[in-house]
């Protein structure tokens, strides 16, 4: 390696580590908080503030009791300082008129925040035909396109509203896919969830627009516990987008969301996520802990497709999964997970085949740069009764520089002999010859890396709705700025 080369690598490395998180700012909005820590009293206060029915309070208290008896999981290939659960504030709502007639009524400060993020609500509404339900801290502040959706009988609102207005649906389906005691974080979420989204698509209805939610953690030291419940009734179709960015904070912030999807017979759910929470600084200070449980159940002939682009968070622990309960149902998982600096990610999926002739596809692309650690962990389980089922998995890792790591942990369990499982895995580095080739055509090294990475992720990015794909591409570039080939 020439001197010049070494020098330029050092320069690039320095640039990587000095690239600051572009979305690090806080919005000055008065918040209404409760005392920190967790107890039965705190849960009662949350439930009361949200004016919840008794069954909801009982559900929360039950979850709290379960959580107290559980231990924080340690099996993932990540290391972090466990959050002090008694130092977290479990409820925080921006002080403002809770229900808005239209987006124009939004707090101007808050509007500025979204503008800085590049999320122009007006533009999104106008150009992209997207209904946006924004969760800032814990309470929904704006909901749009409700009318159009209502005409089709589609319910799209905050989970708090759903608890008030559609209790029969919430009671019927909540915790049916992710039981309270599923894991430590799902139990915690069930006890303290503050808000989130609820969506119901009636029988045979094709949702006419992409449903979108932007989450954002704003208050210092506020944990965020979203709860999302999405039900696609028989023969219905919906595409749901979720995008996340969070402002810079010194202390670690805990995020433990639960997302449950229910696809009844012949229904089709597409769930896309772009996650860009604060990853911490170059020394590993700060950053979001992202411990999420996402799972969907497919009934007969139903299909659930998860697509995720994960670039943020200091620690990610996330496995969007499908339970293929009905015969002929289909599960898909498309993922790009980027880690840089000192980020750690342990992410993947679970495909549980129960019904006959069920199919699943897993395409996971990991990109590790800096001193980060990226892990793919995936389970494919084909039960005895799931005759003639199929799975195809492809796990690729791309390494940048020589200080990062990448691991793949595939678990495969097949209990019958009429099924077929395929697993492919590759690990590669961006070649110097590829970069030089681009350089020679006039493309600088930074842009060349962005181009090569985009090509590498194409199979996943193609799954995203158009307007999201562009945002995801920008995010990849920002996340890998200055990374060495």
């Amino acid at each position, binding site marked *: 390696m*020439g001197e*010049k*080369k070494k020098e330029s690598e050092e320069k690039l490395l320095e640039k990587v580590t000095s690239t600051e998180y572009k979305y690090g700012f806080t919005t000055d909005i008065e918040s209404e908080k409760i005392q920190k820590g967790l107890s039965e009293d705190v849960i009662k206060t949350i439930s009361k503030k949200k004016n919840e029915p008794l069954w909801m309070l009982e559900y929360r208290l039950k979850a709290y009791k379960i959580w107290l008896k559980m231990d924080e999981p340690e099996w993932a290939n990540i290391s972090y300082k466990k959050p002090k659960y008694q130092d977290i504030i479990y409820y925080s709502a921006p002080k403002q008129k809770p229900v808005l007639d239209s987006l124009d009524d939004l707090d101007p400060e808050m509007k500025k925040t979204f503008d800085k993020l590049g999320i122009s609500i007006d533009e999104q509404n106008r150009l992209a035909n997207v209904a946006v339900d924004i969760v800032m801290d814990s309470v929904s502040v704006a909901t749009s396109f409700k009318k159009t959706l209502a005409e089709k009988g589609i319910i799209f609102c905050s989970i708090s509203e759903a608890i008030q207005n559609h209790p029969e649906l919430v009671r019927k389906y909540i915790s049916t896919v992710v039981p309270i005691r599923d894991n430590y974080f799902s139990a915690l979420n069930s006890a303290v969830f503050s808000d989130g989204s609820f969506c119901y698509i009636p029988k045979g209805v094709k949702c006419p627009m992409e449903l979108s939610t932007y989450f954002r953690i704003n208050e210092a030291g506020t944990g965020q516990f979203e709860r999302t419940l999405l039900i696609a009734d028989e023969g219905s179709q919906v595409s749901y987008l979720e995008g996340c960015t969070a402002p810079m904070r010194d202390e670690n912030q805990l995020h433990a969301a639960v997302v449950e999807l229910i696809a009844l017979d012949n229904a089709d759910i597409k769930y896309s996520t772009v996650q860009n929470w604060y990853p911490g600084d170059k020394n590993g200070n700060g950053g979001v802990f992202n411990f999420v449980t996402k799972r969907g159940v497919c009934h007969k002939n139903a299909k659930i497709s998860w697509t995720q682009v994960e670039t943020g968070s200091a620690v990610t622990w996330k496995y969007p999964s499908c339970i293929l309960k009905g015969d002929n149902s289909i599960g898909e998982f498309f993922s790009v997970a980027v880690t840089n600096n000192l980020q750690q990610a342990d992410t993947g999926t679970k495909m549980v085949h129960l019904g006959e002739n069920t199919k699943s596809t897993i395409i996971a692309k990991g990109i590790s740069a800096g001193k980060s650690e990226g892990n793919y962990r995936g389970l494919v389980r084909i039960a005895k009764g799931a005759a003639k089922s199929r799975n195809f998995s492809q796990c690729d890792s791309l390494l940048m520089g020589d200080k990062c790591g990448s691991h793949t942990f595939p678990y495969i369990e097949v209990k019958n002999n009429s099924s077929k499982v395929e697993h492919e895995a590759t690990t590669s580095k961006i*070649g*110097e*010859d*590829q970069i*030089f*080739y*681009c*350089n*020679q*055509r*006039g*493309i*600088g*090294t930074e*842009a060349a890396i962005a*181009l*090569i990475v*985009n*090509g*590498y*992720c*194409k*199979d996943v990015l193609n799954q995203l709705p158009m307007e999201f794909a562009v945002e995801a591409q920008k995010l990849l570039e920002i996340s890998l700025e200055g990374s060495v080939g």
Partner: protein
Amino acid sequence: MLKIKNLKAGVEGNQILKGINLEVNAGEIHAIMGPNGSGKSTLSAAIAGSEEYEIEGGVISFEGENLLDLDPEERAHKGVFLSFQYPVEIPGISVSNFIKTCISEKRKAQELGPMATSDLLKMMREKMELLNIKAGYLSRNMNEGFSGGEKKRNEIFQMAMLEPKLAILDETDSGLDIDALRIVANGVNKLRRKDNATIVITHYQRLLDYIVPDFVHVLYDGKIIKSGGKELALELEKKGYDWITKEIK
């Protein structure tokens, strides 16, 4: 246009180029011939700015500017193009997307606004016609699953799109059958203009039947040991490289 003076370059202390002198003017085609290991590819890589080779001395001046002070992409922006002997694959990136990126980066460097997509597509269609390239080619991924001939044709297509002042064709004939060779050579000839120059690096004389050079240089052991007109190539083909090395001794 291009003036190379006493260029010395090597890898890890092994000197490969031992003092190259070469002058190329606008409108000219130069052929550089030589046996394996004589330094042909090192020379093209040094002009393009590959970091694989260390420059130990000399100057490469291009339109009055020392190329050795510039990064490879800056050299490309100035109008230097290298057709690679082994073009690399870029999975997931289509030919049209790649070329669009090349052109927009070049225009950015030249402080020109972006090219309208319709103009770009029109230009692509024209150049495809020029090189007998079939529709559907633009959406294929860069060199992924391309045959040897397709890869080389893709190089010439990029050259046509980027309109360089100086094009270096590094062993463009290697691995091509006679039909592919003819198509590639025709393309190069059609792109020839008074204000651009071409350096053809080759092993064999046969490419020079199609791309007729104004000058032929023989590279041997890191030095240009003989220069002449196109007849030199024929003589070389007939008598072999031994003839020249003997003659010099």
